[in-house]
């Protein structure tokens, strides 16, 4: 288990999703000063994130993300998907040195492929029936 890491980023910190994977891998959050500073986070946001982490029963390490991962020497790393460009960029850097697998949480609406991105009403017209169903329908 220890050689498989669930690398957590601050855009997806759901306890139930982490607990589901916990038997298979080691959940780890890396407190990376450079990452937070690049985002300009104030103390408000940092405290909010840290409080959340303390609820998760995980290990938090302090240091540059890639350096900490290298020292942990995992065989593979799983990561929850995020549309955030900074997180995506970090994952792309990690993928140069590690075997990365991206986990996609369940979608909000099901059986929908978006092709028109410019106006919300087109998305909503296509998805509102599914959106009003438990779990987004089947």
């Amino acid at each position, binding site marked *: 288990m220890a050689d498989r890491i669930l690398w957590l980023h601050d855009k997806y910190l759901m306890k139930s999703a982490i607990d589901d994977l916990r038997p298979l891998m080691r959940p780890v959050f890396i*407190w990376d000063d450079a990452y937070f500073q690049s985002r300009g986070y104030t*103390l408000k946001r*940092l405290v909010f994130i840290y409080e959340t982490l303390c609820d998760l029963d995980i290990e938090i390490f302090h240091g540059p993300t890639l350096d900490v991962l290298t020292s*942990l020497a995992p065989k593979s790393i799983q990561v*929850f998907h995020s549309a955030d460009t900074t997180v995506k960029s970090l994952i792309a850097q990690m993928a140069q040195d590690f075997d990365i697998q991206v986990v996609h949480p369940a979608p909000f609406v099901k059986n929908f492929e978006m092709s028109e991105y410019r106006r919300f009403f087109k998305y909503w017209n296509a998805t509102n029936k599914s959106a009003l169903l438990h779990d987004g329908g089947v």
Partner: protein
Amino acid sequence: MKPLQTTFSDRNALIEHVASLAPWATGSASPIQGGETAAEHHLRAIDPVDYGKTRNYGDGRITRLSPYLHHGIVDLNTVRNHALRAVEDPKQASKLIQELAWRDFWQRVADAHPDWLWQDVEPYKTGFLADTYATTLPDDIAQGQTDVACLNDFIHQLLNTGYIHNHARMYIASYIVHFRRVKWQAGARWFLQHLLDGDEASNNLSWQWVASTFSNKPYFFNLENVQKFFGTTVDTALERNRALDADYETLAKRLFPHGITQDG
């Protein structure tokens, strides 16, 4: 390598610990607490029917879940299912679920078009070219010291708590872009620094929606609108908000003297 401490005697001890980890971080802690327990408190308080009727008002029954949604502490599916369980007919939860859908939409757009997050998706429909807008946020706005009292109140809420009502975000964005003619990117960057729920996709694309670079027309507002929705929560006295005091026709001529253009 030794993991960091995760148990504390109280919240102040945790805050001190984080401040020592990040001595470069500015400001103070928000009264809004992170974590699953806090998220569940807000989840249990959801009333989709009241939300549908009052969500645009400063004292309306909003969920305050956005910081928890942004950090993935709860997801859209959980909130939607919770809302559906709270009503007899799914249509009674449609306003709330539509707001969740906006977030899903923004995430999908960001995933497919990351270049849209910081670039104008379309030209401004304001009659002005993009390069006529200032690139930096004026200090009086950043400090909440403009000549518009209601906006100062909203800005102080933002700086002190990391959270403001979505309707207030639209007012501030509109003021910055259309009343002060500053590029939406400057305001979006400032919001991302201070909002607990600051999310590149939802935030930046919403700023573009207000600016009209991702919508058919610019969003603007007047004092009467703020008085209607926030009259009980911020200072909307005429003598301290004169810059907003006009009917929409007069305001449109003042803000967009070349006329609002349509994107067809």
